[in-house]
């Protein structure tokens, strides 16, 4: 029973991973790609790890998988934030059809 439930979680996680990577291909600029990957791939991988936790039960492996979930949820948004800030500072433009860029306006105002 627990194996079936764990496999279900793994399949859901795989589907979200696939959608995230599809977003990495389809979306037009760095910031949109970061949106897709940092959401879908993080939750997809967490779902795979949770599937491992469900299959293995509360053994050493399961608890390590749980710690890994916590760690990913804490760190991957920070990495995405740092990468997007670095991209903006290095002068990567937004997509041409973007609506507004108040960050660039404020940066220009400071100088």
């Amino acid at each position, binding site marked *: 029973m627990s194996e079936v439930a764990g496999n279900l979680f793994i399949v859901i996680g795989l589907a979200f991973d696939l959608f995230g990577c599809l977003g990495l*291909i389809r979306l037009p600029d*760095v910031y949109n790609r970061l949106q897709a990957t940092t959401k879908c*791939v993080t939750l997809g991988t967490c779902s795979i790890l949770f599937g491992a936790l469900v299959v293995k039960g509360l053994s050493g492996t399961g608890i*390590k998988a749980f710690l890994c979930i916590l760690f990913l949820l804490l760190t*991957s948004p920070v990495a995405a934030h740092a*990468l997007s800030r*670095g991209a903006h500072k290095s002068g990567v433009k937004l997509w041409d059809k973007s609506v507004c860029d108040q960050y660039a306006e404020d940066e220009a105002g400071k100088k």
Partner: protein
Amino acid sequence: MRSKFPSRYLGWCLGLLGISLTLLFISIYPLPSLLRWQSPFLSRCFFMLMVCFAFCLFRLMRGPTPADRAVAVDTLGILIVGFCAILSIPTGRDWYIDIAIAWALQSFIGALALAKYLEGRGFDE
């Protein structure tokens, strides 16, 4: 983003067809016996994760700016964690999940270093 109306829909249909054919192929093709662990289901999941890897590698090769490549590397790092988690179930080797934790740490620090590099400053800040 192509502006021509019909070609965009054609590309979408072709992409959907290609991806679904690949997934169908993975899910029904009899895998070689070396890769058939205790559960054939999980080895198929493993190959489906390989499709995600292929997408990331495409962006890594093609990315027009360095920032795109950095994003692709970060995504690859997170995917490898899931990869190790899947490996740890059918092989029954617990230390794969240790590798997953260590890889998550290393990938996070690598992403921060890449971001600092993109910002164009030194590492000592």
